[in-house]
């Protein structure tokens, strides 16, 4: 059995185990014998933990896949789906809805976030134009994320009430707490479409290994690839941020974790990155719930605490490679 297949199977088994663990674990530990519709603890599973668990797996998979596709597209192992501004744009949308106190209706915040993602994506596409250039794409993304970031900071500093400020700050940290089936239903079609689009980029990303000229001479259409990547990543990241807030680093870390097993070919990294992303977020979400803290540790913070040191590790390894 080849290494890629065994890794994918192992990840699937891991996801199944983490899925079950995620339904059991939390402030209230629910043993398997309580898993029946009549049990008083059943609503905790059916209405709280199950949607949260499904959402964690979906968001993790979408972010992992987006990260692998972005790294392949930019041919840079330090690329992250947040790099091109869509997550900052989505966050800004959500922050605006919180700023004006629209969060009363549960669907308004995700709707604003998705609008923010779509607007950012449109501006990005307009800035880059029809050139299909990777350098323009990266620079435009960096500009957009910094503009969206500064507007988010502005919204925090001008927030009408201290309550709004605290709501915005808490939301920005990213979490899966109290998510419902509505959130799952909202995110599912968008994430699925995004993942399908990204799954189509595999062979073309492989061709891009040889650089842009060689890839174009092999019949790669750079504009079509850029469209697939932009729309695919925007759907995945936009829908993730809309339902879970900003959860960073998954897209950066996960492809690095799977490359030692499946090699560096971009298309080979895509599927295992999606699976490993789902597993990582499921496990992280179980851990933040099981932590004996007074209020639940925010998932976004937990991932950043993992991601920072990992980034440092990558940097040190690269430095060794350069020496």
């Amino acid at each position: 059995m080849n290494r890629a297949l065994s890794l994918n199977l192992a990840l699937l088994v891991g996801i199944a185990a983490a899925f079950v663990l995620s339904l059991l674990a939390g402030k209230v530990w629910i043993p398997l014998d309580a898993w029946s519709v009549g049990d008083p603890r059943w609503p905790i599973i059916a209405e709280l933990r199950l949607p949260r668990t499904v959402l964690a797996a979906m968001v993790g998979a979408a972010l992992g896949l987006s990260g692998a596709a972005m790294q392949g597209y930019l041919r840079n192992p330090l690329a992250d789906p947040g790099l091109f501004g869509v997550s900052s744009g989505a966050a800004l949308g959500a922050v605006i809805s919180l700023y004006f106190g629209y969060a009363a209706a549960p669907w308004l915040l995700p709707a604003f976030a998705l609008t923010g993602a779509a607007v950012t994506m449109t501006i990005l596409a307009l800035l880059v134009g029809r050139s299909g250039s990777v350098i323009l794409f990266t620079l435009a993304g960096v500009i957009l994320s910094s503009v969206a970031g500064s507007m988010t900071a502005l919204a925090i500093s001008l927030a009408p009430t201290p309550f709004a400020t605290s709501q915005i700050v808490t939301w920005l940290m990213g979490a899966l707490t109290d998510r419902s089936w509505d959130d799952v239903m909202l995110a599912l079609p968008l994430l699925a479409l995004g993942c399908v689009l990204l799954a189509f980029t595999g062979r073309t990303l492989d061709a891009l290994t040889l650089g842009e000229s060689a890839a174009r001479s092999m019949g790669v259409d750079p504009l079509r690839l850029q469209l697939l990547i932009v729309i695919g990543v925007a759907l995945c990241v936009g829908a993730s941020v809309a339902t879970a807030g900003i959860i960073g680093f998954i897209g950066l870390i996960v492809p690095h974790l799977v490359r030692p097993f499946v090699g560096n070919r971009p298309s080979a990294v895509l599927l295992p990155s999606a699976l490993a992303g789902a597993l990582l977020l499921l496990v992280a979400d179980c851990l933040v719930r099981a932590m004996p803290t007074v209020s639940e540790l925010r998932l976004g913070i937990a991932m950043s605490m993992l991601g920072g040191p990992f980034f440092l590790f990558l940097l040190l390894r690269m430095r060794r490679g350069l020496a």
Partner: protein
Amino acid sequence: MSVLKAEGISLRLSGRTVLDAVSAAFKPGQVTAVLGPNGAGKSTLLSCLAGLHTPDEGRVMIGGRPRATLGLRDLARQIGLLPQGADVHWDVDVATLVALGRYPHRTRWGETKADRIAVASAMAATDVAQFAARPMTALSGGERARVLLARVLAGEPQWLLADEPLANLDPAHQLDTLECLRDVARSGAGVIVVLHDLNHAIRVADEVLLMCDGRIVAQGALEDVLTPQSIATTYGVSSHIGTTPDGLRFIVTTPMVR
């Protein structure tokens, strides 16, 4: 007979005329060396032929059809481009890299028998099969250049366009690569190669295309085109063309006496 033709192509890049009404015809089964000083437009001509640039005027004809009527994939199946100093952005193994050359022939159902045969014969032709499992970063400059050439050959192009494939190679590997280009031409494909060393052109070329300032100075059989006069007008150097005792021709260039 399938012929690759440039018909009066002109191209301006950033306000500068890089190609100026270039007309040239290339024949299959032959090696054509494209020669000329730096900035003469040699690489740009190759890019235009390969479809990376669309000329402002004129057109490229492939087998009697205008290039613009061919789809990206059709074009990529006919023309294989080996760009100058090609990068490899991910450290993949040699076999994986060579297999990328099959991209224009890919099907929905993954690798076919034809793909495997083409990859194997490209690796045999460039003598890289013995390190098929090695990662690209573990190769020497010469091995790397051969692997990159194998990638293009794996696409079984009717036209091989190589932009300075001998740069950074030691003399032995340069001769190996030239021999490999000759083999490709012998198999029936047309080879168009940008070279800087006139002696390499003498060793490999049937025909020579001499360029200067975006224009074609001369095109024709090697002996007719590569003369001390044409070398002096194109490169601004004096030259002496001689023959070794065993009949190999060579060129020595010296600064022009004014």
